[in-house]
């Protein structure tokens, strides 16, 4: 053991974890010092999540060693990790919507204090760190940003030495991100190390002291993010130089708007879902409308209402002047209106069915694959093969089950299936979610190509950079309402954040919070 190692809070050497068919982590080594904000940067599937799950005791590594303050550290379960001072805020929250904030926090504790004491503690910590939260509110009524605060406060009550944050900003508005960063900087100044997982480069450059970059399970670089450009970081992460999508010059197409949505209001079919309230927008031919918003503000409902799975009143949705408001998915397809949902497996595609069958799923109406109720399998196979070829879907053949494809390849297939139907209107939810950078770039390119060919495109996404890159106009969903669309040209991040709902009345934390927290922790131990 060397002197530098004892100075480190957490040291990882040669950590390897393999799953059947994929090596998630291969010989990964890095270390985190107390108070350091350390970034783990990598694309989806680079092995970041597996790595932190090993640190949090959720995954047992195949080989390698971890040391905490120089001592061997091999947590077999999260409880052991928490006892060693490791806390984690997950990307997907594990909260009970029907319980209130304090009850949710109590559920994660080994020896929860009485509700009243706990509520007081939650209030104290939340004020100290500028994360206002009412302990008696029902979690089901909270926004995504507020739910994240519940998770963070749950961690802070343990007085952690190492806080792991897995893609924390994917559910936040830009204003909320700023406030989260202020909280994290405060924690870091008090000596808490933070392991920050992200693929968002600018965030890492503004927040992190050092970065470990993972690609296909291996550490490919370590750097100080402030000293390199975002472009360099991206190339280290992806491994190749990226070319931004090319845009054809905009053509002005004559005629009525291709898609008109007026006063679209529907109740959410899901419990704790967000109902749509008076949504209105138009999209012209050749135009891309980007719809942003924090997850859970009505994106899923909007997609269902546009696809026809959720029927609305007549007149609310029109494509090329044809009223589709109360029409189902297949009538809309007939009118040239196609949709690609966010969830690839289970919604856009049936996991256990072959690509041929999945091509039939939404393609039969427009591609004429069914005659008098009988399926033309030869034509369907031909269609599926065409999609695979044209959209560069990597697969051994069209006979394989959808679930056997990687996320990026299945996404290319799903989007290719919709785009190759010569649609007049295209709606896509989260086109590049969970897709590697090169697949994402090619998906964005085909969307722009379709728009250039005269289709009206609506892209719903939580990735602001993506929307800024491909959209002509921009609008945001906030609690089921859509802001008025504005041209992307000249739009600042500040304005975007306000359209997404601002920061829900939060304020930046003040000094002296550490004393409160440590006093609380001391109370809890006593």
């Amino acid at each position, binding site marked *: 053991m060397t002197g530098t190692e004892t100075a480190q809070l957490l040291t990882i050497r040669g950590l390897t974890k393999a799953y059947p068919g994929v090596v998630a982590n291969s010989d990964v080594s890095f270390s985190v010092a107390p108070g350091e904000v350390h970034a783990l940067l990598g694309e989806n599937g680079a092995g970041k999540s597996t790595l932190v799950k090993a640190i949090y005791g959720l995954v047992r590594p*195949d*080989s390698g060693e971890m040391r905490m303050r120089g001592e061997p550290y091999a947590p077999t379960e999260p409880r052991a990790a928490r006892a060693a001072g490791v806390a984690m805020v997950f990307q997907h929250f594990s909260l009970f919507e029907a319980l209130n904030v304090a009850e949710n926090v109590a559920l994660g504790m080994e020896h929860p204090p009485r509700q009243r004491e706990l509520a007081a503690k939650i209030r104290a910590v939340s004020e100290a760190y500028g994360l206002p939260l009412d302990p008696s509110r029902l979690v089901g009524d909270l926004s995504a940003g507020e739910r994240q605060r519940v998770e963070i406060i749950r961690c802070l009550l343990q007085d952690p030495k190492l806080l792991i944050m897995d893609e924390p900003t994917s559910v936040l508005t830009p204003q909320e991100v700023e406030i989260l960063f202020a909280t994290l900087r405060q924690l870091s100044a008090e000596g808490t190390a933070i392991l920050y997982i992200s693929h968002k480069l600018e965030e890492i450059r503004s927040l992190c002291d050092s970065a470990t970059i993972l690609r296909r399970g291996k550490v490919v670089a370590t750097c100080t993010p402030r000293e390199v450009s975002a472009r360099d970081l991206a190339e280290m992460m992806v491994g190749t130089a990226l070319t931004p999508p090319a845009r054809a010059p905009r053509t002005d197409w004559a005629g009525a708007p291709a898609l008109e949505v007026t006063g679209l209001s529907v109740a959410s079919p899901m419990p704790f879902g967000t109902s749509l309230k008076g949504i209105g927008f138009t999209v012209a031919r050749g135009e891309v409308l980007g719809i942003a918003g924090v997850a859970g503000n009505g994106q899923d409902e909007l997609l269902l209402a546009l696809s026809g799975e959720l029927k609305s009143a007549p007149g609310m949705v029109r494509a090329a002047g044809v009223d589709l408001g109360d029409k189902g998915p297949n009538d809309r397809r007939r009118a040239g209106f196609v949709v690609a949902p966010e969830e690839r497996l289970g919604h856009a595609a049936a996991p256990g069915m072959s690509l041929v069958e999945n091509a039939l799923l939404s393609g039969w109406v427009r591609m004429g694959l069914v005659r008098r*109720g*009988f399926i033309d399998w030869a034509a369907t196979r031909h269609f599926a093969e065409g999609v695979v070829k044209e959209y560069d879907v990597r697969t051994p053949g069209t006979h394989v089950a959808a679930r056997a494809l990687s996320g990026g390849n299945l996404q290319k297939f799903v989007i290719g299936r919709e785009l190759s139907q010569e649609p007049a209107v295209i709606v896509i939810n989260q086109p590049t979610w969970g897709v590697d950078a090169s697949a994402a770039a090619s998906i964005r390119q085909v969307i722009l190509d379709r728009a250039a060919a005269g289709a009206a495109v609506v892209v719903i996404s939580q990735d602001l950079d993506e929307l800024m890159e491909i959209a002509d106009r921009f609008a945001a969903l906030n609690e089921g309402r859509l802001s008025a669309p504005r041209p992307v040209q000249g739009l600042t991040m500040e304005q975007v954040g306000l359209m997404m709902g601002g920061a829900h009345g939060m304020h930046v934390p003040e000094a002296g919070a550490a004393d409160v927290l440590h006093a609380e922790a001391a109370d809890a131990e006593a």
Partner: protein
Amino acid sequence: MLKLERRPAPSRLWTAATPVLAVIATMIAGGLLFAALGKAPVEAIRTIFWDPLFGEFASYSRPQLLVKAGPLILIAIGLSLGFKAQVWNIGAEGQYMMGALFGAATGLAFYPTDSVLLFPAMVVMGAFGGFLWAMIPAVLKLRFGTSEILVSLMLVYVAQHIMSAASFGMLRNPEGMGFPGSRNFQHYPAAFNSELIAGTGMHWGGVAALGAVVAAYVLLTRHILGFHIRVAGEAPRAARFAGVSPVLLTSICLGTSGALAGLAGLFEVTGPAGQITTDFASGYGFTAIIVAFLGRLHPVGILLAGLLMALTYIGGELAQLTLNLPSAAVQAFQGMLLFFLLAFDVLANFRIRLVGSKSVKGAGA
């Protein structure tokens, strides 16, 4: 340690092999069961599986094979459509009885006509009776979100009581000297479902069963409705995305399975059973569930499974007669078959791997 690992795609080999494995495992476990009852296991198995086809009294029992397999296949084909779409009709037994009642009542209402239109009318009414009985759980499910499993199952017992009431009351044979039970269709030629080829056991029910097998095969492999049934079972949200209406699909699945069960009941009451009696129900509706799964919800598989199940019925009866096996032992034997089938089914979607402790070396250091 054994570990189950999900296959990327269901294994075709195992999908085909599991029914065979299940039958073999049932023979072994059944043999043990019979041995525990103090019977010679090999002889018992041979009595059930061999003697009905090639034994001493085979000329009597062989035609019974088609008589028993017909209703099983007919009902199981209907059930399999629903099961594929995750619509669980457990009450085919009730629909079977209601089909028999509707059809028989139609025939008896026109007694003693000799119109050639009578039998077709009874067939239609039989199917309608089963359809109607199956639409009760369908409507309740779609309107109030009730479980079709419970409602259809409980309606079996309601149907049982209506059956009893009919054989004591409305449909009782006026010349039956007060005994419960309707007129016997054997003495009513216009309404009798006679054997089509003497000595084979083939009656109109068997023809209908074969027709259902072919129709279901074409529906599932060639028709968009069959495709939608499969998608709905595989991924309900993808089915809605494909424009499938859950209301329509649930109604079609329950209605079709009810109508086919009703048909089976009609052919049974007008043929082998001969009359409406209090003990008309014979468990075909429940056994057909086993047949549907044993046949992998595939029409051809169901055809084979129906024949096999009919064999265990006849063989079981034979074993009761010649070996004094209790009838419960034969039912347990049939239950085992379903149990083993579902257990082996895991192998189609998962593979078993041996996981040694060596793979975690170093992690605990």
